[in-house]
């Protein structure tokens, strides 16, 4: 019964739309997704190009240390041989090409909300990078094989397979911001507290919570203006674009520094859209 229910439920070929890849959009999605922040090269390897997501840097999680894999198109150690469907199943369902469940530290429950076209653009962008040979390092988690399989069960609770739906009552830019925050940006993974089952507690969306790396708290994103965190949406845009350069020192700690660096690379209209959405969270 357990074996049956925990089985991977991959998407089929009909999930792949006809799509002309857009590398610039892929780069944008790669930045807002913060892919490099976890898939960065092992710091012990000084010769590795820090700008390429060749993986291997340790990522501390509550269940152990993970070593996120190589996202460069190396055919042996990276994603060079992955089909479009393999890639979409990884991002939208948390499944490897061989059907293994990813540990949900990889935020596929947010990426599942993304337009598949955007996911395919990330793949095209990654495929355009210089391939790096970097062997996969086994994760250091005291989790036996059958429990890892249990992620398949957890997915019934934690993984919604519905795409992000725009709210027709809101502006186009609010909806763009909502999509970037909830989908590729996966902000909820840290800023929304979790339930007893480690799923995101949607009743307390973006209300802040314990830091996933166990050090302090992640701030709430609700009422950013009302609580005096920012003067207005424009102030928040400045903070996201310029961070410490304009004296916004709080956007550096707890892992947010790398996120702010990513945000500073986005088109200004997208940063404004994100701010418009965020300040509407009460």
């Amino acid at each position, binding site marked *: 019964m357990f074996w049956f229910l925990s089985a991977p439920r991959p998407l089929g070929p009909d999930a792949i739309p006809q799509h002309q890849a857009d590398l610039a959009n892929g780069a944008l999605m790669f930045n807002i997704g913060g892919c490099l922040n976890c898939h960065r090269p092992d710091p012990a390897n000084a010769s590795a190009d820090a700008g390429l997501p060749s993986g291997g840097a340790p990522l501390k999680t509550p269940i152990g240390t993970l070593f996120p894999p190589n996202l460069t198109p190396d055919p042996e150690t990276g994603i060079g041989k992955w089909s479009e469907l393999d890639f979409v199943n990884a991002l939208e369902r948390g499944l490897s090409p061989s059907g293994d469940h990813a540990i949900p530290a990889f935020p596929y429950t947010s990426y599942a909300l993304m337009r598949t076209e955007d996911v395919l653009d990330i793949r095209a962008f990654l495929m355009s990078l210089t391939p790096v040979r970097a062997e996969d390092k086994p994760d250091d988690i005291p989790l036996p094989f059958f429990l890892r399989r249990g992620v398949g069960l957890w997915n019934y609770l934690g993984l919604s397979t519905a795409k992000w739906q725009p709210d027709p009552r809101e502006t186009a830019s609010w909806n763009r911001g909502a999509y970037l925050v909830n989908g590729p940006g996966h902000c909820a993974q840290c800023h929304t507290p979790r339930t007893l089952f480690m799923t995101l507690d949607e009743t307390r969306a973006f209300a802040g919570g314990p830091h996933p790396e166990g050090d302090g708290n992640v701030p709430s994103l609700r009422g950013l203006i009302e609580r005096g965190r920012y003067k207005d949406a424009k102030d928040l845009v400045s903070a996201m674009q310029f961070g410490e350069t304009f004296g916004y020192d709080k956007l*550096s700690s707890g892992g947010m520094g790398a996120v702010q660096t990513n945000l500073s690379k986005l088109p200004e209209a997208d940063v404004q859209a994100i701010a418009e959405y965020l300040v509407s969270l009460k």
Partner: protein
Amino acid sequence: MVKPATILKTMPVLAVLAGLGATFALAGPIEDRQAGMKQVGKAMGAFAGIAKGEAPYDAAVVKTNADAMLAGMKQAFANFTPGSEKGPPETYAKPEIWSDPEGVKAAEDTALKAVEAMAATTDEAGFKTALAGLGEGCKGCHTKYRRPKD
């Protein structure tokens, strides 16, 4: 009998000591480093105001604030002393500050150099370049060695 020449020589030293005494008059290392950081933040606020166009560029204002920032930063850095890992008052300093002295030293030196570069600017273009470096300098420590706070 102290020679007048000796008095003249020691006077600047005494003045510096008096100045240090004034800034070090608080309760303990946590308060002292937080006061130093506050001074840094105030100067950064002045720079940010200029960068955002809320205040006009003024070389003298930049110099004054850069000097104040340098003093505040040095005061802060000198007060991450052994035994001051935990408050009260509440401190956001991470334990890595005490376990990774080499990393901290490198990050501090980068920040200090960035402030010195700001103090040496004479025009608006130089100011803007120095400000970007200064932001990176602050961020270099805050990303690694400070806990998040709401």
